[in-house]
């Protein structure tokens, strides 16, 4: 079974530039998550999709971050404009959860963003 795919693996940009990350979840997984992991901290949930609808974006800095999941499969996360404090690893995860409650989330390798 193919895992969660993310690209790019690494990205270096200057502050105020824009950047986009892509995620392809495991086939058939209805729920998709984007997490931000700052060095030395645990992953923080940015946004959660159920199919192509947003179920939680309470911690997404909406003035600069946006995400979409068209057709309920792939997802993109965008930052515009980037700030130095956005330097982090951005993790994508997916799970089967379809109203059945609690299932395991599978994580991609992440995209390491460095803003200089």
């Amino acid at each position: 079974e193919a895992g969660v795919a993310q690209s790019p693996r690494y990205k270096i940009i200057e502050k105020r530039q824009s950047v986009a990350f892509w995620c392809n979840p495991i086939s058939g997984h209805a729920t998709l998550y984007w997490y931000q992991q700052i060095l030395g901290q645990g992953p923080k949930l940015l946004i959660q999709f159920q199919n192509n609808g947003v179920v939680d974006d309470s911690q997404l800095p909406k003035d600069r971050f946006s995400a979409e999941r068209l057709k309920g499969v792939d997802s993109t996360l965008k930052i515009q404009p980037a700030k130095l404090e956005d330097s982090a690893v951005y993790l994508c995860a997916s799970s089967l959860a379809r109203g059945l409650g609690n299932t395991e989330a599978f994580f991609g390798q992440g995209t390491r963003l460095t803003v200089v």
Partner: protein
Amino acid sequence: AQSVTQLDSHVSVSEGTPVLLRCNYSSSYSPSLFWYVQHPNKGLQLLLKYTSAATLVKGINGFEAEFKKSETSFHLTKPSAHMSDAAEYFCVVSDLGRYSSASKIIFGSGTRLSIRP
């Protein structure tokens, strides 16, 4: 609302001695609980999970954890530490939360495990 508290940010043990990483959780519903490990510059790997079956859960690489509802704890243990166990460990809670159509997954802040030769 769910929350996870990992009580130690850093644990250091000698090789061959027991490991204990502590985790307490808060959940409004019946949670599932997980432990993930993250080696430097590597992705997150699932160690074990509790999903309302047996309260003592065995995972990979000799790790196990016990779900104690009365103490709201899910501590991770291993009888004998190995050098390769050095990594960051995350306790994770998942439940339906406010949105009944999908689980919400919350991470603890992590515990860095160091192994002394």
